[in-house]
């Protein structure tokens, strides 16, 4: 939309908008600040005053969280599984979303609904049959097996989300490419795939958040300590905390786990802006 104009009436409305936004974000920022400052407190300080500031920057919690479980290892495992899964998902689901979202053919509606129905199935139900399958493939207790599951379970969501984005893309470029003699497949990879960038980036971010924090499947499919993911580390610390009432320790672990997700989001949201202007200008 065009930039805000500065007549008197507009300035008033602008002020209202800003105030509202600032109030909402201030509260959100406050909650984030609270989680972070609490992670620097000792539990005694927390018990003494929930809302007070910590007496000093007590990094003992972070040290403990990092060392109690092998967080460094878990971190690397999570990075590996999450990134590979996301890349695979992009290359698996974007083409599928293109077909399902762009073309009407016999059974396209059915397929569409099939993917949606998949989203409705709580993954907890699939735990047992999937575990049996994975054992059959001898992939239990392997990050590859876990990645395979992650990809499969994310397919419905990704196909659905991406098909929605792709559906609203302009078709002129597609038509032009076809006229030029490109095959459908080339058209897709050369034109539609790059154009879908905003949607892809959005789905990548959402995938990252979900997979990074996922622990139930990791709990079931991984055993060996060397292969555990960071979400399991957090789950472990959180559970231990509940039974030792180490709340400040919990928050330190939460912050550690949260940091990559925040960074990814902040960094990638720049990409969205860049990708969009690129897509809008081209053609």
């Amino acid at each position, binding site marked *: 939309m065009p930039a805000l104009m500065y007549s008197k009436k507009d300035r008033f409305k602008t002020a209202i908008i800003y105030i509202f936004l600032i109030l909402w974000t201030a509260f959100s920022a406050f909650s984030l600040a609270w989680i972070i400052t609490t992670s620097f407190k000792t*539990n*005694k300080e*927390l*018990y*003494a005053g929930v809302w007070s500031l910590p007496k000093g920057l007590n990094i003992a919690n972070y040290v403990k969280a990092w060392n*109690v*479980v092998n967080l460094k290892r878990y971190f690397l495992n999570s990075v590996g599984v999450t990134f590979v899964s996301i890349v695979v998902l992009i290359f698996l689901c974007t083409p599928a979303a293109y077909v399902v979202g762009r073309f009407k053919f016999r059974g396209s509606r059915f397929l569409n609904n099939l993917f949606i129905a998949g989203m409705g199935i709580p993954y907890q139900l699939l*735990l*047992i049959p999937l*575990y*049996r399958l*994975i*054992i059959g493939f001898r992939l*239990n207790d392997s990050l590859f097996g876990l990645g395979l599951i992650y990809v499969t379970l994310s397919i419905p969501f990704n196909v659905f989300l991406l098909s929605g984005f792709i559906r609203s893309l302009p078709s002129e470029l597609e038509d032009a490419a076809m006229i030029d003699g490109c095959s459908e497949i080339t058209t897709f990879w050369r034109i539609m795939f790059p154009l879908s960038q905003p949607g892809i980036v959005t789905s990548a971010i959402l995938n990252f958040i979900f997979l990074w924090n996922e622990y*139930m499947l990791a*709990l*079931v499919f991984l*055993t060996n300590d060397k292969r555990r993911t960071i979400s399991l580390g957090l*789950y*472990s*610390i959180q*559970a*231990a*905390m509940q*039974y*030792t*009432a180490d*709340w400040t320790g919990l928050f330190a672990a939460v912050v550690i786990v949260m940091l990559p997700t925040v960074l990814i989001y902040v960094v990638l949201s720049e990409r969205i802006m860049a990708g969009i202007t690129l897509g809008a200008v081209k053609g």
Partner: protein
Amino acid sequence: MGRIQRTLLIVLLVLLAAAMGFAQSPVKLVYLSKWNTGEKTQEIINDAINEYMKDNPNVTIEPIWAGREANVKLMAMVNGGTPPDFYDEDPALIENSVGKSGLMVDLTPLLKNTKAWDQDKKVWDCFSKGFFEPWTYRGQVNCMPIQQYLTVVWYNKTMFKTLGITKTPDTWPQFLDVCEKIKKAGIAPIGLDGGVDFYNLYYFSHLADRITGMNGLKKAIYDKSGNSWDDPGFLKAATLVREMRDKGYFIKGFEGYQFPAGQIDWAQGKAAMLLIHTYMPIEVKDNLPDGFVFGSFPFPSVPGGKGKQYDLTSIVGGVGIMKTTKDVNVAFDFMKRLASKKVQTRFAQEALNVPVIVDVALPDIFADLAAIMKKQTGTFTDYSGGPGQFEPEFAQAIMYPLVDQLMFGKISPADFIKQVKTKAVDYWKKKG
């Protein structure tokens, strides 16, 4: 040597070699546990595992610290064909998952016939008399307890002294007097995390048992005709609970306290007493203001009631062995170490558990508790505050919601009893 003797010698040597081979054959066991890395108990068990492996080099025990969702992991492992050898969980959870499906080893003969690791008696005899009764299902012991938690009323001794309360209450009327005195001093008599449904149930269940006799509540729950609920004792218990609420003895706003807020408030001196298990001290130990001294007394008796003041309730955590284990004798050989004097002492001193065997001293923080346990009448009842342990669906669908309503002042005691009775009858009818 003649041919026959030579052959015999060779056969003998071969047999000897085989026997030696067998004795050295490696055994690998998997220990699935509900504990998390970072909990003291986990550390102690892990040390015991490592020590056992050092003493028995041909045995490898692989621990899986799955956390409180261990039952999900177990389900997957059992279904996937890779069940663990040990399952470390509460007896009720073991029973209701794999126990009643017949997948657990009956530990009774092993307990009775094996000598304890560091004591000169059989493992069974290290426990107090009748200890295993509450955890015996269908005549079987699926799970050997390794830690237990009693429920008592905790209070801050320093605060009581300041308020001039010199004697802890033994009977219900005395208890109410103490509450009134504390209330007049401007402090909430009782702290409570009202958001946790089974914490709310403790008051009713304790009163019910004090009035109708030990295990009275359990008997009523299992009475399919529902007539046990007509016993006036239950109505009286409900009325007494309600009275406490109406007199304002529970901390204001307790209905909205989300765990751990109630404990925090108690530890900070905003509430005087807390009825809860013995795992609470280790949870709050590092977060107490200076000068805090732990005190505890058993739930008071009710005059005219059949239950006694020193009827104690307890819940336990333990370990069981699955039938699919590769070597039940080796497995038990390890397991008995967890009930040994050495390990139990560590549990008591470092994890602040109440030990399960009789010859271990309790840590100072539980000084009152030791005295209480000495006066124990009878054996333990197994539900330390509610039927969540032995009839979970009943608890879930009937007891918890109705007790919540009673505690929050939404239904009258009479209505409470009526609804419990009706629903209980329906429940058992459905079960067939």
